[in-house]
């Protein structure tokens, strides 16, 4: 589904990704781990199409299309979803409006009819229950005054409503207490399906106790330096990132 080949990315004159390769198939869950500054968030942002990242080499295909050639909104409509590390607050626009506008944009693109208010509410209330969110969240400004945990839950709620084919979760576990982590992980797990791929970008192994990945990759110096199964994450937790870096240098 997603194929990244030899990706080089420069941010403000500095190379952050230096020849990254990654292949993600439908139904798979990949965890990308790495120390701070290894390029994890850069990878997530480049996939979603954020400005300010210069791809100097390499290619990314999504379902055979050149992903880098698509505008961010087109990527979203084609089923790519980024759960933000720092979700943005937009006071004055309520959550329900954003959810509905986003959902209808995706549905229209797929050639489906837009949902009416009743259908939309039925759908969204169901998903909110799963995320343990009170219905009053619908009427609040987008992420306005939300706690860190509420913002992350809201990201997963959006994902649950939009049902993307490729979800990239950028440090979704950061800033979560254990209860919130369980809820978020529960939401993510319920969205696992044979035709959906997920990429979890994380610093800590903790999240992977709740969302079991099929593959674990270690990112270091802008490249994937090691790939394994979930046991690699446990080994990292025990021995630290220096161990991988030393093994690469050796």
């Amino acid at each position, binding site marked *: 589904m997603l194929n990244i080949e030899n990706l080089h990315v420069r941010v403000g004159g500095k190379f952050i990704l230096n020849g990254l390769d990654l292949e993600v198939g439908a139904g798979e869950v990949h965890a990308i781990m790495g120390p701070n500054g290894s390029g994890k968030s850069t990878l997530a942002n480049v996939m979603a199409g954020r400005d300010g990242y210069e791809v100097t080499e390499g290619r990314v295909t999504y379902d055979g299309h050149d992903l880098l050639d698509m505008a961010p*909104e087109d990527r979203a*409509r084609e089923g790519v979803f980024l759960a933000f590390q720092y979700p943005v607050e937009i006071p004055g626009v309520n959550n329900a409006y954003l959810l509905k*506008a*986003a959902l209808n944009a995706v549905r229209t693109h797929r050639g489906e009819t837009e949902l009416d208010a009743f259908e939309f509410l039925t759908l969204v209330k169901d998903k909110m229950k799963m995320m343990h969110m009170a219905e009053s969240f619908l009427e609040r400004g987008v992420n306005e005054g939300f706690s860190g945990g509420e913002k992350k839950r809201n990201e997963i709620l959006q994902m649950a409503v939009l049902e993307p084919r490729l979800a990239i979760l950028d440090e979704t576990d950061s800033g979560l207490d254990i209860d919130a982590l369980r809820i978020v992980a529960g939401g993510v797990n319920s969205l696992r399906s044979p035709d959906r791929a997920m990429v979890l970008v994380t610093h800590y192994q903790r999240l992977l106790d709740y969302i079991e990945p099929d593959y674990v990759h270690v990112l270091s110096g802008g490249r994937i330096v090691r790939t394994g199964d979930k046991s690699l994450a446990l080994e990292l937790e025990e021995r630290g990132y220096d161990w991988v870096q030393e093994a690469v240098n050796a």
Partner: protein
Amino acid sequence: MTMAAQRGSDRKLSRAEASFHDAWRATERGTDPISNLQRAGFAEFEASGLPSTRVESWKYTALRTLSRRAFRVSGPVGAPTAEIVEGMAIEGLEGPRLVFLNGRLQQALSGSEDLDGLGIYSLSDAVSDGLGAAAEILGQIADPAAHPFAALNQAFLEDGVVITVAPGKTIAKPLYLLFISCPGGDPIAAQPRIVVDAGAQSHLCLVEHYTGIDEPDNLTNAVTEIRGGAGSRVEHYRLQEEPAQAFHIGGLHARLQRDASLDSHNIQVGAALARLDIGVSLEEPGAELRLNGLYTVDGKRHVDNHTRVDHLAPETRSDELYRGIVDDRGRAVFNGKAVVHKDAQRIDAHQSNKNLLLSQQAEVDTKPELEIYADDVKCSHGATVGQLDKNALFYLLSRGIGEEVARKLLTYAFAEVVAARMPLEVVRRRLEKRIAGTLPESDLIREPVGGDR
């Protein structure tokens, strides 16, 4: 001849000034109080003329186009039908309504309603009754020496309204003043005067709405004077939606006594050139002012808001929030001044002006000013000029929302901060609707979704 008048007579008059001088000379005046006020007004206008950009408070607002137009101070107007008037009015606003055409009160189009404690008199009736309490307000709060357009308005003082609220009375419904500008052959200068006397412990909600039909190239020069008695509360809305060729100049001047409050909501979305001067004196302890403002400027339009609050007494508070959206080649000017006088201790004065620039050619000149002559005060001020938040824009795009809609949505969100502070729902909704414009299902942006609750 006074020195001032002498200075005035040395200048070459602009076409607009000459038209006002001619109109002045064409009318006889007596020795009654109104004639005296008119005379004093004209003397000030003759001395100052139309302000040039050399005058500090008019530095960024040039009146070239206005000054080249000759105005008539009154003239026949084609009377629009009640249906047309209804179509221009704020939908859903209940209560007494006074309709003015080119500044002239139209009894036939107005709908009166007896509300306990509310007195409404046309200015001409008040004049023939000897003014009464209005004499202490009319021409006494809006200073013609400080404001050339207030002087001009005073010189041609004829029509308008005197509003009184009896002490202790809460007026149950908003009082709606609808000013409609309409073509009258030549450009017309409509110069209504609104006088408000809010008695002690009274409560009034007043809506001034300026609009127009059939694209007149008129000038509206409206002046409002408010005296807020002890413990009174006045909620004032000023919605300026004039046609694209119109000039709109306004003044809102108030004096607040002990524990009185004024909430001013100033919305400027129309006219080729608009300027509003707000001046409020907090004269006694406990007086409180909230200034809430929103302006949108596009095309080659120009909007200027000048506000000034004088903290004359201790324990007075003022809080100002103004936001502007400036697009195309539009230009916005903001000047907010708070003066804390000597001995006005333990006061709060806060001011914020934020501007959203939506194009490269748009321009904003903003200047918050604080003058403090007391030492125990809490003051803050800030002004920003910026573009749409890139992170917020990307967030919306990454959810599949198209760029055009995303930009409009964020622009709406920027303005909504001001709209949210307006308790009068029908006005707030009208504003939100206008700003949301062509956004899909715009009525849902901040309302609960769904009809099933």
